[in-house]
């Protein structure tokens, strides 16, 4: 386990130094909000925040965890393994094929990473979602991962930090995905029953069955600026009500205005804010 710090943090950085991609297409990208050109090294320094308009682009989980944990240092915990494709689901393509592809592209087993370390000196177990893995969708593997994270938090007397980034339930696992909603709610209950804090860091996007389960049951809800957070998809709502949606609908700021999140915090201030909040709710005796 001690080597995880190396594999999880140092190696990717080394790789990025020793194997820079010189393709110009990879060096420059366009901000989806202001369309300004973004230079990859600048983006890395700004933690994927647009250097022109401050738009928060999506961020790889590894980078995010490094940004949040004290000393950029954390260890990962392997999520429980679960059998693939319980329904033998097939749409235009087989679910097993989509899984294989997502695994090859991301190097991940599924859409959740569990990590532990300290933030502001307080012990934290994080359950972070990878949007790059099938839209961060929640099926059995993710539900089990979240449950594992909660159990780890209780075992370590640490806070649980959920970092959803998900389109919702994984359709390819049908009702088994739906059941992850009450199961993750129960996971949260175990953390609460142990008297430990449960913080939700809502990132772009957090929607559907993920929002409507563990993501809305935090002791404290912190969202990233501009993050899309909601239950129903905007297209579905627009089709149902046959009206254009209000400006800023389902953004982090909109949710704060409507009382669903406590604060909207810029990425560069996130670790400090988490540390402050954890310091306020966790007694010193439980500082790790």
């Amino acid at each position, binding site marked *: 386990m001690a080597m995880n710090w190396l594999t999880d943090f140092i190696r990717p950085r080394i790789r990025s130094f020793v194997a820079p991609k010189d393709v110009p297409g990879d060096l420059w990208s366009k901000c989806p909000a202001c369309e300004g050109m973004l230079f990859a090294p600048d983006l890395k320094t700004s933690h994927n925040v647009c250097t022109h308009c401050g738009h928060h682009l999506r961020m790889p989980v590894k980078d995010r965890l490094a940004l949040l944990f004290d000393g950029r240092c954390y260890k990962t915990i392997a999520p*429980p393994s*679960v059998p693939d494709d*319980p*329904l033998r*689901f*097939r*749409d*235009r393509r087989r679910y097993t094929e989509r899984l294989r592809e997502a695994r090859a592209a991301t190097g991940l087993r599924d859409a959740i990473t569990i990590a532990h370390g300290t933030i502001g000196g307080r012990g934290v177990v994080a359950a972070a979602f990878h949007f790059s893995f099938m839209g961060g969708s929640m099926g*059995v593997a993710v*539900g*089990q991962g979240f*449950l*594992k994270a909660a*159990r780890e938090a209780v075992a370590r007397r640490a806070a649980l930090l959920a970092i959803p980034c998900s389109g919702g*339930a994984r*359709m*390819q*696992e*049908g*009702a*088994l*995905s*739906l*059941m*992850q*909603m*009450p*199961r993750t*709610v*129960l996971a*949260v*209950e175990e953390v609460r029953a142990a008297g430990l804090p449960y913080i939700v860091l809502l990132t772009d996007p957090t929607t*559907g*069955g993920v*929002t*409507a*389960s*563990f*993501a*809305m*049951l935090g002791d404290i809800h912190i969202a990233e600026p501009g993050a899309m957070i*909601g*239950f*129903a*998809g905007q297209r*579905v*709502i627009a089709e*149902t*009500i046959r*009206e254009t*949606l*209000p400006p800023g*609908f*389902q953004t982090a700021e*909109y949710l704060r205005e*409507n*009382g*669903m999140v406590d604060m909207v915090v810029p990425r560069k201030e996130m670790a400090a804010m988490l540390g402050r909040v954890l310091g306020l709710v966790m007694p010193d005796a439980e500082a790790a």
Partner: protein
Amino acid sequence: MPPLPFEKPVAELEAKIAELRQVASADIAIADEVERMQAKIDRLLAGIYAALTPAQKVAVARHEARPHFSDYVAGLFTEFTPLAGDRLFGEDAALLGGLARLNGRPCAVMGHERGRDTQSRITHNFGMARPEGYRKAQRLVALAARFGLPVVTFVDTAGAYPGVGAEERGQAEAIARSMQVFLAAPVPIVTVVIGEGGSGGAIAIACADRVYMLEHAVYSVISPEGCASILWRAAAQAEEAAAALRLTAQDLKRFSLIDGIVPEPVGGAHRHPEQAIQATGRQISRALNALTPWDGPALVQRRKANFLARAGGDL
């Protein structure tokens, strides 16, 4: 309402019987003929309903004439006393509930109500609840817990309402909190999916000690139409999606996600609503009897263990 496409041969025979009855009223030969045709209809229906495809089950589950929440309440409960409002924002007629007696014993009862005609469908928002509905559900469970009353819920919704106001008032939070409240309630809870169990809007009131489905009910993470438009990029593939999603009562039972299936009368609940309602009532009574008397904390512990054991298994 027009017959379901796969019921066409039955509808033709039924039309013939109606014709026969019109031409002669006291003719014995016709009575025999009617009896013979009725027997044929029954055989046909039994065959058709034993072999329904998942997409056909979706159509049956949504059938207009299928008994609704209000029919179950009228058929099974006495002294139904509707309670209104979430005490926070408003009243939601898409999710009705209140206090009542089942077999003489007081309980809380709630469920989605789709409405029957155009006007009542609008009143009940087609059974698609807003946050107020789910917060009223929480209130009713808390009330039941306070007075030691069992809770019975009936699920029948296409899903939670996707609207601007619903989002503003925290549809996601209302659903999440509802599951939390149900899972922690120290009183027995029995749920029956009577028609369509649509995603989060359904499971919000289905976190029960015992969950049953009617034989031709469906329960799914997303509607077949929604799934088809996302994964196939064509809503027309809903039939395929319905099969792929494994949303029938038989599928849910096979995956141990529900506790049992309530058999429907031949030809579906919409043909003989009273039989379906009474069969459902017997199942609810059996379940509540098995759960009574109860020890609150032990009940909660078992309910939690049940959900953790499902769809993945406890760690």
